[in-house]
Every structure is written in C-alpha cells, then in structure tokens.
C-alpha cells in the first residue's frame, strides 16, 4: 500500500508515493537520498536525526513521513544558499565545533532554529536548546562557542 504526499524539502517541492509507516528520516535518507541527516538511535533519544519542520527542530526518526504532508522541511543540505555557507556552518568550521561530524547537522539545524527565534541567545539558552543532541566526541564547549559566534554576528549585522 502506498500513499501520496506532498512536501517541500529545502525549498523544493516533492510529490512522493510512500508506504504509510515510514518515518520522515527514512523518507529523507532513502527516498530523497538526503543522507546528511543521520540516525543515531532510532528512538528519539540522541537527536542525531533532527531536521527543521516549519522551522522547528524535530527528531525525524519519530515523525511519520505522512505527517510531513504540506510541511516545509529543512535539512543540512538546504542550509547554504547559492554556495554561501550559513553563518552557523561558517562558525562551526572556524571554532572547531566539528570532530567526527555525525551530530553536526543536527547541532547546526537546532542552533539555527534557536537563533531564528532568539538572535541574542546566550550560553544557557544554547545549552537548553541543544542538550537533546548527544555528541560523543564531547565537543560541547566548542559547539557553544560556535553558536555564540554566529549569534554575535547576527546581532551585529
């Protein structure tokens, strides 16, 4: 059995026929081949699979793809525009916020949602917003620095 859904991913409209029980994560990785979104546990406990749904961070392993009908999805692949990196991508590179990189897409997308909402987010707010994403490299200090740098730049501009 297949159902047809219509959704927008990184600004591009997709109409896809899917089995109704697949998750948004599976739709992104397997149907649309956007493998930048990672699976770390499949149970909504590690945050690796976070994408933005209408601007809000969501564990894509917990959301059924059919629930994405009519929604705007942003994945890590959609962040740079016209070849220009998003300020968070830039600051993650500069501040050494990337080690193995597996949690990086989720960290950047969650930070984007935070800064879109609260451009002056301070350390405590950053910690709260990103605490659901596990980075086993333990790179939390540099990730916070990177988000703060992007936040400062946003405030300056």
């Amino acid at each position: 059995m297949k159902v047809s859904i219509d959704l927008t991913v990184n600004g591009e409209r997709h109409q896809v026929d899917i089995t109704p029980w697949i998750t948004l994560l599976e739709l992104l990785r397997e149907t649309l081949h956007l493998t930048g979104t990672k699976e770390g546990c499949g149970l909504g406990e590690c945050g690796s699979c976070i994408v933005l749904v209408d601007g809000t961070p969501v564990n894509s392993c917990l959301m059924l793809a059919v629930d994405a009908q009519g929604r705007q999805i942003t994945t890590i692949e959609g962040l740079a525009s016209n070849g220009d990196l998003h300020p968070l991508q830039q600051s993650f590179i500069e501040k050494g916020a990337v080690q193995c990189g597996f949690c990086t897409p989720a960290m950047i997308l969650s930070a984007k949602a935070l800064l879109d909402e609260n451009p002056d987010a301070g350390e405590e707010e950053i910690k709260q917003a990103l605490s659901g994403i596990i980075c086993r490299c333990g790179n939390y200090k540099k990730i916070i620095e990177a988000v703060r740098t992007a936040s400062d730049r946003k405030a300056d501009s």
Partner: protein
Amino acid sequence: MKTNYVGKSVPRVDALEKVTGQAIYCVDVELPGMLYGATLRSPLAHARIIEIDTSEATRVPGVKAVVTGKDFPYTFGHMIKDQPFLAMDKVRYANEPVAAVAADTEAAAQEAVEKIQVTYEELPAVFDPRKAAATGAPIIHENLEKYEHSSMYKIVPGTNVCTHMTYSRGDVDKGLSEADEIFQNEFYIHPVAHTPMETHAAVVKYDPSCRVFTVWSSTDAPYQRAKDLAKALGLSFNQVHFFSTYSGGGFGGKGAIVAEGIGVALASFTKGRPVKVVYSRQEELTASQVRLEAFLKLKTGVKKDGTLTARVAEITWDNGAYSSKGPEVARRGALTIFGPYRTPHVEFVSRLSYTNKQPSGAYRGFGTNQVTWACEAQMDIIANKLRVDPVEIRLKNFYQDGDRYINGQIMQAAGLRETLERASRGIGWGEQNSKSAGALVRGKGIATTIKGTATPTDSYCFIKVNFDGSITVLTSSVEIGAGQKTVLAQIAADTIGVPLDSILIPNPDTYATPFDFGVTSSRTTYHMGNAIRMAGQSVRKEILEIAADVLGANPQRLVFREGKIMDRDSEHEMSLKELMTKKYGGKGGSILGDGHYTPARSSIIKAEHGIQWMGSIFWMWATHAAEVEVDTETGVVKVVKIAAAHDVGRAINPMACEQQIEGSVMMGISNTLFEEFKMDKGRIMNDTFADYKVASMLDLPVIVPIIVESHHSEGPFGAKGIGEPALSPTAPAIANAIFDALGIRFNELPITREKVLSALRERDSV
C-alpha cells in the same frame, strides 16, 4: 624551522564536508542491488545450540539469504582466533549473533529473523572475571589451548584465563621492608560503552568469480581488519578490499571486526549482491564491545615523606566472551600500574579471563583508564594519610629525564612536571575551596597519567605531486573524527613547502593506500606524521632539482615556500604549477615520494633484552585537576571545573588538541558519574540512551585545556600524541575531589548519585 601551518589552529580540512552534510559515512553507502542484513541474537548468556530451524524465515518474501554458523563455519580473532562469525556449537554471551538474514528491505530481513527458531540448552554462566578465573568455574572455551594465538598471550590451559602475565623488577620484599607505611587497597573499574554516534556498520560485496570481498567500513585500521578477515577465510590480502569511509566516532570501539563479520557471512550467499549491515543502538550497546572491567589490588610501600619504595599489583581483567584486543590491553595496560613514578621495587600479576559477557576491547586509553584509576586514587589515599600535599607527593616521585622505566628504558620525562604544575594552577590548587552553600559542598582533586604508544609499529605513505601542482597524500590513517587528516595535511604542507589547500588526503583504500598499523594507541600524528615528513622531503628534493634544471639555477640558492620557487640569484620566481607544466610539457606527469616510519631502530627505546616491547617511542604525560560540587541532599555530583594539562610534544594544531582534551573530559565525566550497565543473567537491561545515560551539553563544566610542549627529539616537528591520555586522569581527579569535599573515598566506579547518597547516609549515621 619556520612553519606556515604547523603550530597553528587552522580549521579542520574535513569540516566543510561535514557542515554541509556531504561527508559519506559507512551508514550512507548505497550500492546498486544492495540488500539489508539483520541478525538473530542469543537470548542466553551461555547455552548449547541444539537446533536452528530457518525454514520459515527463508519463505519471507524478499529474503535472499539466511545464514547460520553451520553454513559459514569460520572463526576470526586479532589476538586469539576464538570468535565465530555466527555462533556454531554454542553461544557465549547474551546477544551473540546466531543467524543472519539478507533481504530486499530492512523490514523483510527483520521479519525473517523473528521467524528463525532456535533450541538452546542453557549452560551455567559466569560474569565476574575473578570467579571465572578460579578453578571450578564453567569453562567458556573448551578448546582454548587449540586456538591459534600469538605466544605473547600466555593461556592457562583448562581455565578461562587467556592472558596471564607476571613481572617483577627489584626486590619488592626489600622495598616493602624499607617503607614506613604500607598501603593496601582494592579498586574496581566498570565496563563502559564507546557509543559512537555512528553505530558499527559495514557494506560488503562478494565477487564469487574472483573470491574477492569488498568492504566499506568506518573501522579504525583497515589493514588490520582486512588482514584478520583474509586469515579467517583463508584468502590473500588482495581478496579482502577495504574502503574506509568517514567515521562517526570510534574511541577504540571500531578497532575490531563487528558488523563487518555479519556482512561478510551474508555476502557470501547473496550471489554478488552487496549487503548492508547497520547495528541498531541496542546492538551497539549490547553486542559490539566495551571497555575491560577490572579489579585491581595495590600494595604500596612509602616512606614518611611520601617517597615510594615498592608496589605490588594484582589485576584481574574481564575479556568478555571473545578476544578482541583484550589480551593486549591486559598485557600493556598492566605495565603502567606503577604510574608516572620512580618505584625501585615493583611486581605485578595480570590475568585476563573470559566471562559470559559482551566482548571487551580497546577503549580510548588501552588499559590506562583502569590502572590510572587505581594508581591515582591510591596516591591520594597515601597523601592524605601521610599529610603530604597530593601535588607534592607526585612531584617527589615523578620520573625525571634519565630515570629508568620498568624495562630499563631511559625516560624522556620533560613535560610531566609542567602538566602537574599548570593543571594545579589552573584549578587554584591550595586556595581555599569555595564556601559551602547549604547542602552544596565543594572539593578539588588531582590525578596524573602516563601513557606510551605501542612500539614498534609501522606507518607508510605515498605522496603524489600532480601535474598541476596539487598534491595527494596516500595513507591508511583513517579520519576517525579526531582531526587526523588536518594534522597530517599540515605536516605535509610545511614539509613540502606548499599551501595547505593544495593537499588532498583521500579516505583509505587498501588497494591503493599503503600499510598503516591503524588509528590506535595515539600513534597517528607521530608515526604517520614521520612517514609524511620522509615522503614530503623526498618530493621536495625532487621538485627543487627539477626547478634548478628548468631555471638553470644553483639548487642551493632556491627558496621553495607556499608553492612558489624562487631563485635568490636571479630573483626569478615560478609556481609549482608552472614548474610541473614546464617539466612535463603540458602532457602531465607525477612526482612520487614514499615514506616508511618505524621506531624499531631508535636509540630511545633501548631497554633490557627481551622486554623492549614494554617501552615506548614516546611517553605522553597528563594531569587533570577537578573541582566538584556535591549536593549532600541528593547525592548529585556536579563537576564545576577541570583544568587538563597535556604534554603533546608539540601541538601541530592547538585547536585539534583542545578538541581532544575537552572531548575527553566530557567522556571522562560521563564514564565516571553516569554510565553503568545493568545486567540480569548476563543480559544488559539498559540498552538505550534513555537508560544508559551519557553526558549531554548540560553536564559541561568549565574546561581549561592546557597544552604543554616538551618537543620530542624524533617526533614530526616535535609532536607526540594526545587521543588516549586525555581520558584516563579524569575519573580519579573527580573521585579525589569528591573525597576532598566529603571525606568519603569511592574505590569503585561509577560514582553514581545513589552511591554517593548511601555513602553520605552511612557516614552521617555513625
């Protein structure tokens, strides 16, 4: 030597791919016709397999292969060849692979797995390595003596002990009799999971016509894995082809055949169709590998002033059901039970025993976490009893340049003192602890570690200068996540004299990149760095010769920097690209260089005959100083601050060193305070991140990373290593700080809040 990149915090060369989601990890590999694998695992810790009925499973639509140990009766093992790809006559731990299915979809594979019927006959199991090592314990490997293994690992026939080792130097009875006080303590360190965010995975394709397995994997040592697989299957090295992908974290956990084994077994039966095996988080936590659990007994003689006179150590390690790198962890880990201290009389017994638990293996530190935990906690016990400052007692006993290690090697100890001095300054050692506020009590603690690197081991590389002046460095050092590519590219750029962005380091491919021992033992910067120095110097020399020829210049008068060659006499300048075009006439060509580094002939590792292996080509020193705040009402320990000082020789990339230090501190906090397996009859009950808690961003303390640079005489630009020693002092530093805060000593890890609370109640009820 003036450098343009070495010593600078240049951004990581792999960062762009990673922030844009373009980096390919093993779990992202997709091939035409690819099938998906799923594994049936044992519900019992120790049982005989009576029968496996796969008939229903094979009938599930989409199923292409159902494989059991009978169908694929091979065993593998890096140190002791004891592990079946799929269980054969019996299972030896809960969640051991028993059968595997390859199907068109994951769902079909999973459905088929659930339809496999297995009849077991349960056997008595043993989970405590001390009990397992005793006579009368259930025997886990009946044919242990017959297994192929290196003679380095002394097996005790008829028991579960698969590596037994004793060593003594001096006369411990004499040393103990010279002591004013003798301290006897017992310590326990628990098993913990690596939990890389990318679980173990493999994509395997088998070509039955040529009998070639092609394996995509994020393992930390593609050559070792290919070698072990080839040996297990009776194939040549060329019949097992490894492609390394980016790796979503290793920490030692990717130093074994895990998902690769299931993939190889399945791919053997899928008629050329590739099979992808991705471990679930539950499989990762229960059936990959863990840090060796260890029980340690220390008996240490000390003079009144804190001078160590002797130490006797007894360590029992848990190998789990199969040998990953457990035998070498037990052998090498035991050596540093004496810490970074001059101890005239020493002796140890180290035994590694099988148990009916998940296999143990390498874990960031390779035995050093275990021994540092005991050694540094006891140093604190001694200091406290003798009323000597914990910093002073360490300074008094530290190795100094020229001291001899336990195998007679002359120590290069520069940097050790500085780590202690700067870490203690960083935490405000000696200053009054912040005032207790209500139920919150603060304390400070300190711990130092010594870590060597496996010696001697070899690294090879090729450097290829392409026709347009771009450069490719071919190495089998994987990017495990710790910045290997960046640091190696910096070394290459400064050695050759070219811009960093002209250098590409592709992911390893065992058909093309030469041998490397692996990204293990904190060895990559030093070993592969040295190999790249050699290859880089060779291509640089050739470039200069060509330039002298093309420019008609005196080679001695040429300056080659940042990809530009200038003749100081004529002041004529030419880019490397122009030079290559001139030389090869626009048709194209390559300049090739190769490097092979081995420390085998270095005078640094000279030691007494037969025990040179105990030494190390470089020694890494580190001190962590922790400040904690304990809530005496809830038992919650909050790490407030950690100053972590590391002698890295020379920081090729200070930012990358900080990443290692800060990341290890987080891992150390997590291991020490939160992580603990809960078992029932050998089954791990907490097999998700909800129940197996690892540190989050909310647990981040103030971390002060301190880089000490002692400049190693044979290291590339003076560098040593950093990855492993960054973890081991964290646990004892925290425990020592808790003692300072509460006057309560925890000799067993982890220090959970339940334990703290019950210890507080016990203390206060007295």
